[in-house]
């Protein structure tokens, strides 16, 4: 097994991990505040992908505009659902939120099936993204490189936002302790809506990148990646934004190395491995790798 092969796998892992990380961030932020396991989050990624497959010709002149339109679409949808489905449930049992998100997920999936049919759609790409770039002994696809650098940019921007801006700090405060932050005069509605918007926006970004990576999309692509991204968020420490990135990359690496270094007959067990990883982390460090144990409150 050459070092080139290992480097190649490492790069593949980074590319997949970036996608998981982008989806996991939104799940982690929303869970951190509302304690909602958002089953509809992966479907926002799917929606960006489905509309991307449709709107490509229209927007192919400017990839940046294409990107922003789709990410904004996902972000706005996230806001809309927060407003009509989740906000009225504040104060209701947490499991009601979970069930609502499941309902939203099925509405989105069936809605897309009705709008576009359930068959896979080709996701067009641009030449510079589908090209293979040769760097030393490894080959990197343009789309994977774009995915990695976009995720890096997102990580930097999010860190700056949550550490340096008033709104970002308010968001972390609400996430840490909703009641105390309200006593401190923070109106939680804004940070919650913002968490939904940012998370859904990033899911939209991931949807476009997903389309570029795999070349096709269909109305059911969202559920499993959403689930795995949630696993990533739990592994990294749910509620923590750096944790979501760490978890995403761990999951991506674990998947790639599991398939890349074991005989092909094991490849069916990739997801078994992923979910077992969740068990191990929960057993050893229940709050996740970067999660903080919250002080006991009466």
């Amino acid at each position, binding site marked *: 097994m050459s070092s080139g092969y290992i480097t190649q796998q490492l790069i593949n892992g980074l590319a997949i991990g970036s996608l998981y990380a982008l989806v996991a961030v939104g799940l982690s932020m929303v869970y951190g505040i509302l304690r909602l396991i958002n089953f509809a989050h992966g479907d926002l990624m799917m929606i960006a992908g489905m509309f991307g497959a449709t709107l490509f010709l229209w927007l192919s002149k400017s990839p940046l505009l294409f990107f922003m339109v789709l990410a904004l679409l996902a972000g706005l949808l996230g806001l809309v659902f927060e407003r009509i489905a989740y906000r009225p449930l504040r104060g209701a049992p947490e499991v009601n939120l979970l*069930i*609502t998100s499941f309902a939203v997920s099925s509405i989105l999936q069936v809605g897309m099936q009705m709008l576009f049919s359930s068959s896979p759609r080709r996701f067009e790409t641009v030449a510079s993204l589908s090209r293979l770039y040769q760097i030393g002994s490894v080959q990197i696809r343009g789309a994977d490189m774009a995915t990695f650098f976009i995720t890096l940019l997102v990580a930097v921007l999010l860190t700056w936002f949550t550490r340096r801006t008033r709104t970002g700090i308010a968001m972390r405060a609400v996430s840490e302790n909703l009641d105390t932050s309200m006593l401190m005069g923070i109106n939680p509605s804004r940070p919650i809506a913002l968490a939904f918007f940012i998370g859904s926006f990033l899911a939209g970004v991931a949807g476009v990148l997903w389309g570029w990576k795999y070349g096709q999309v269909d109305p059911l692509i969202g559920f499993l990646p959403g689930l795995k991204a949630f696993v990533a968020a739990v592994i990294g420490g749910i509620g923590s934004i750096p944790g979501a990135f760490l978890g995403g990359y761990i999951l991506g690496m674990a998947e790639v190395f599991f398939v890349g270094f074991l005989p092909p007959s094991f490849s069916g067990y990739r997801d078994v491995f992923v979910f077992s990883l969740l*068990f191990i982390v929960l057993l050893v460090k*229940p709050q996740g790798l970067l999660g903080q144990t919250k002080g006991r409150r009466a």
Partner: protein
Amino acid sequence: MSSKLNSTIQGQQLVKTETLKSFDYLTWGLAIALIIGLILAPLWLKNYGLILLCTWAFRTVAVQGLNLTMGYAGQVSLAQAAFMGVGAYTSTLLILKAGVNYWLALIIALLISLLIGFLIGFPALRIKEGHYLAFVTLGFANLIWLVLRNEQWLTNGPLGIRDIPRPSIFGYSLFEPIRFYYFSLIMLALVTLVVWFILRSPWGRAFKALRDNPARSESLGLSQTTYTLLAFAIGSAFAGVAGVMQAGLVEFIDPDSFVLWRGLLLVMMLVVGGSGSLIGPFIGAAIVTLLPEWLRFTGEYYLVIFGLGVIIVMRYFPKGLAGLLPFVKKRFFTREVQS
């Protein structure tokens, strides 16, 4: 029975109210009418209707189990369908491959679900805060699905297992839909009785006490971990039984019947019906089973309508439809008494 007296403070005044006896008569009357209706149902239902009612029965059993975990112990399990899969596959494989008697297979399936419930619940429930059981059962539900798909030598993989036999008792075959219907009904009645007894036993009271005031109950010496674990394991065993009932009814099982979202559907039945109440699971399972039949004319729009319906129920009836009962009782069957 003497009338129940309640006192509440409204503003400055102590108001004493009593529940009208007609409320008791009405609820008991309705319950008895429903039971008689279910017993007589084969008189006017054809096979399809009976199969629907059997589906309702096994779903109610599974949701009743979930009710112990969620409604009384306050922990979310997303693996109830996976436990149904454990029960269904255990019993089917024992019957078809090992030639085990149906009833013995049923009991083994129940015990294995119970055991797995303990094994999963033990590490997961050490942590009380947060949704650790939900996370762990989310992983477990996916693992079970993947194992059922991958281990083709045992489970026949995604193709599933066909021609699952229905039971017979003392040489009396329960194959005919009408007979299988009564079998399902009796199982449902048994499970309901078990839940009823659990809830009225000191155990059940401990469950409720821990749900309603954990700090106080722990100070009285009740171990939250132990009781939650018990509730989860017993609830999972119910799912195992429901899985055996499903396998016999459908005569076919495959991994997709027990996938994660089926577990979410069971959680949905519980929450829509009303968690923490004995009749909630009956209502929730009935709605999720019967509504698709009534809404058949909507075709592909069905899931969208259903999803919107769930959002509306969650918004306006956060305690589920069974939560309407105390409201009706207070609004229409309560009167003030002069003290």
